């Protein structure tokens, strides 16, 4: 019989692993459900243990029961912390993607459709998206929240580069066709493998999204 907290421990390990990955590994729906079930079972056991005492339980008089209750109690809290840590690690990752302008939902769909395609997180070859439906909702809502906050600093571009700017103009190489962009020096047509000398502020988003590569 598995020990209390074994499942929670697995979740914590998943969370730990996730921290070092670029992409999110698939959501452990089964494990989350199992840990939650364990909490409910423990809670029922506590209720059952306490039932005969009718609310007048004296720990000193029945130390064995008191000990069981304490273990149950601690296991429940521990499971809860593991669940919170697991979900928080994932939302942190998702928020990071949102800040970087990565379309997480699109990415998840791509990984799902192409399990062998480069994505570290797709290693398990899962067919479903690596995000839980709740996480997909969360990403959408957080995206809206960030857009609202950003909207109050329109001149700053909050999601812009956090590298101190050195040069106004930079050399970039086009990695993927990005179509035509408008700059104050006219339109530039970004076709793959071409190279341009452009104003950094004009192309920052495209660099972040992987269309362009900064040279030098």
């Amino acid at each position, binding site marked *: 019989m598995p020990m209390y907290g074994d499942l929670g421990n697995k979740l914590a390990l998943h969370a730990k692993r996730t921290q070092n990955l670029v992409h999110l590994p698939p959501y452990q729906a089964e494990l*989350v459900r199992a*840990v*939650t079930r364990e*909490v*409910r079972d423990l*809670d029922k056991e506590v209720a059952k243990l306490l039932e005969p005492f009718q609310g007048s339980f004296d720990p000193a008089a029945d130390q064995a029961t008191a000990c069981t209750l304490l273990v149950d109690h*601690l296991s*429940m*809290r521990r499971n*809860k*912390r593991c*669940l*919170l840590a697991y*979900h*928080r690690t994932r*939302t942190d990752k998702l*928020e990071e993607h949102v800040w970087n302008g990565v379309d997480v939902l699109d990415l998840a769909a791509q990984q799902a459709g192409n399990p062998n395609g480069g994505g570290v997180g797709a290693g398990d070859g899962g067919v479903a998206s690596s995000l*839980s439906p*709740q*996480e997909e*909702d*969360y990403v959408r*809502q*957080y995206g809206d*929240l960030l857009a*609202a*906050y950003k909207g*109050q*600093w329109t*001149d*700053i*571009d*909050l999601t*812009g*580069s*956090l590298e*101190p*700017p050195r*040069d*106004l103009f930079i050399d970039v190489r086009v990695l993927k066709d990005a179509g035509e962009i408008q700059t*104050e020096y006219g339109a530039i047509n970004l076709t793959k493998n071409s190279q341009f000398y452009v*104003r*950094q*502020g004009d192309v920052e988003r495209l660099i972040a999204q992987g269309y362009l590569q900064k040279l030098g």
Partner: protein
Amino acid sequence: MDIDDILREVDPTFHAIPQEKQDLQDLTRAWIAERSAPELLPWPADGLFERINGNIKAQIEKVEEMTGDMDPRTNFALIVIQTELERYKYLVRSYLRARIAKIDRHTLHYLSTDNLRSRLSEMELAYATRHQALLHNHYLSSFLSSFPPQLQNLNDAAGINMVEAPDLDAAVFIRLLKDIFVEGRGVDSDVTMDGRESDIVILRWSDAKPLVEAGSAELV
């Protein structure tokens, strides 16, 4: 030289640093401090950011005006102004992001008391409140709603407090702005020293904070 010029020369406010320059200096200070301090520092209350936004807007307009001009000299000035503008914007962005990162990390902590809440700007407060609500909702819909009701809180204080707070004992570097007596708590023993102006010392933030708040030292 007429009488106005003479009067202007003896007027102490005339030689004072212009407001824009002062604002940039304040912003740079706030930026350095925010990035070094382990906890969130109070949002500048004197309308600094309204002025900064105004300055940025004015410069952007200037750039747009000058772009039409084909004179090479204007062109050179334009590049200087644009570079400066990018740097200014970077400072603001980096400052705001440093704050958001701290707020995100300890959201519940900063929302827990009025005193802590007052350190956030209105926008940050709205952002933090909404973010926390989103997270809580996410936990609820993912697993928390199937928990027994008494376990659904996010701020259980029994045993270990669930709300994490920043480590106020983390080490920071400060530069002394005047001669002052410095006290620091160590692991084994406490240290005191007679600090001189422009000395740089490493201290626990909890020890350095009173000095910084009194204006006797600044974070570096």
